[in-house]
């Protein structure tokens, strides 16, 4: 009987894990999937959660009647924080990581409470998460190799954040004349301020806001391109725009302005950092909105 329960448990676990992989890597972007992957990321998003965190609610349901007062407080606080993150913190994946260590502890604690502490159980409970974790990591790094059972390439450097985006060449150039004494419009790149002595007004293309000592203002909204040119050159005294190529596409007017009225003067070999000179050659005689 115990063997049957154990085998059924393992089969349910494998089936559940397979469904979880499908949810994460072959999602159809439905509303339910969005809630599971964003709001309930702590339990269902494999990038942000412990690989077996989805089993935690089941263990809690199995055990809550046997909770003592400390365990009750533990899980009430844990669930309250999980609820807070689910409701208010879903927009940022980092918030669900806040209680990830507590979630991992809770899993093993509840497993230990519900299952007998025999060597075979301990071995299975220690080994299975590592196995699922390995497949998850291999799939994350090399999705095509998911079906390759004997993939021994575990490259931590590739798994970690890529460090190839530090544009030290462009920062070095900006420290020299003529850039070092000029004012820039900086498209949400704080490295500009940290690594160069230049001045730059902070701008964020998707919400079209630039920031001054009076707060923020919209740049393109309710302005023609000529008026935008005037704001940049006369009001803000900007000669250059420092941006990331991938950020340009987040605002079509911004991208269009760069293509029509600016000249690309610097690019970085690392990442896609760009410096545009606000030349405005084509501004004279035109009146575009």
């Amino acid at each position, binding site marked *: 009987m115990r063997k049957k329960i154990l085998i059924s448990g393992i089969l349910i676990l494998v089936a559940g894990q397979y469904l979880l992989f499908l949810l994460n890597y072959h999602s159809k972007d439905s509303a339910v999937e969005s809630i599971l992957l964003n709001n309930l990321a702590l339990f269902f998003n*494999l*990038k*942000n959660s*412990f*690989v077996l965190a989805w089993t935690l609610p089941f263990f809690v349901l199995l055990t809550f009647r046997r909770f003592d*007062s*400390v365990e*009750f*407080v533990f899980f*009430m*606080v844990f669930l*309250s*924080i999980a609820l*807070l993150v689910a409701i*208010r913190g879903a927009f940022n*994946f*980092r*918030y669900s*990581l*806040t*209680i*990830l*260590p*507590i979630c*991992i*502890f809770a899993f*093993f*604690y509840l497993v*230990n409470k519900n299952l007998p*502490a025999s060597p075979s159980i*301990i*071995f299975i*409970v*220690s080994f299975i*998460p*590592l196995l699922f*974790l390995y497949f998850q*990591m291999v799939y994350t790094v090399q999705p095509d190799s998911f079906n390759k059972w004997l993939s021994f390439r575990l490259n*931590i450097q590739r*798994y*970690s*954040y890529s*460090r190839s*985006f*530090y544009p030290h060449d462009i920062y070095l150039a900006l420290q020299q004349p003529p850039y070092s004494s000029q*004012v820039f419009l900086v498209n949400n790149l*704080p*490295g500009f*301020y*940290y690594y160069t002595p*230049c*001045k*730059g*007004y*902070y701008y964020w293309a998707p919400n079209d806001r630039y*920031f*001054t*000592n*009076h*707060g923020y203002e919209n740049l393109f909204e309710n302005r023609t391109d000529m008026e935008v040119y005037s704001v940049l050159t006369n009001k803000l005294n900007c000669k250059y725009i420092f941006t990331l190529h991938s950020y340009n596409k987040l605002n079509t007017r911004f991208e269009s302005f760069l293509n029509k009225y600016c000249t690309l003067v610097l690019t970085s070999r690392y990442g896609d950092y760009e410096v545009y000179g606000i030349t405005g050659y084509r501004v004279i005689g035109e009146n575009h909105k």
Partner: protein
Amino acid sequence: MKIYLVLFVELLFIGVIFNFIIATWLFRFKLFKAFECLLYAFPVALAIIGLMLYYLFIIAGGLPSWVYIFVICLFFIILYLFSYRLHIPLLHAVVLSLKGLNNKSAKKKIFILITGILIIWMAYDLVRSAFIYPLMNHDCLEYALMAKHYALHCSFDFVKHPFIESNYFYYVGLHAPAFPLLGSFEQLINQIFGIQSDLFFRLLTVFPGIFILLVLAYHLNSINPAYSMTGICALFFTGSFNYLIYDYHIDMYRISLVCVAFICMLYVFHLKNYNGFLLFGFIAGLQAHAHTLGLFIGLIEFFWLILLIRWPLRNKLVTGIFAFILFLAGGAVHYIIDSIAGTGWLFKLI
């Protein structure tokens, strides 16, 4: 070479001396076990440095850099004078707990050894990475910029628009400045020694991250050492956690304080320790001072603790009020002042 020497002295003072002084104070409260006091003291010591700079910059801004370092060191010396009698008992208790490892079975010892090797390997790779790669993460660069700004002027002002005139940078962050102020601590020391470095600031991701792994390993070890090994692998290799522990960010620092506050809350509930409740209030305040999410988590913890702890109502309310005052003093008060006299905090439309 000078940079590494200064970094070594910084780590020696904070990681060893200040850590040990705070550990003896935690030992006083008779809440945590001896080894846990040594462990939890690290993020608490860091947070206290950030908190002290916060109050010093507000109350006595504009003084020379060495004054602030001197006051912080003086503070820890005073703490030491009130706690030096506990050093030997603490060390004795730690040695006894480590000797207890001898009583474990061979299998458990093997798993403890494997866990230890894994943590050392992870720590080595993290520290090596921190020495090689510069600050690149968007948010962390903003914190580093503000760290330099606070240290340059040796002041912290509540302003509606945090616009820096020297480079036109506008700081959009709304969290309390604990993390940037730790960067300011390094910058103040840099000013004294005439060096330029942000190595200590980079290591503020690494060391709290290692702390989180150690805490998880320690508590899972109490269930089963095999789970400890699996648990730290699961934590370290979770994609986003791995990304954040390698890429410099505030998260490891704030999560380390969340862990300490959570554990403190559980101990207070279990031991029904009145002084422990006050300590929890202060640590929850430090947690709030690190990040806005810490503030809300602290309030959640307060709520459940006061609701469920089995004390007479009067005792609950009186201790709760004092603990809440300490919660505010520990850093949560920043959000009240910022809402009224500063940026407007969450009420600001960004």
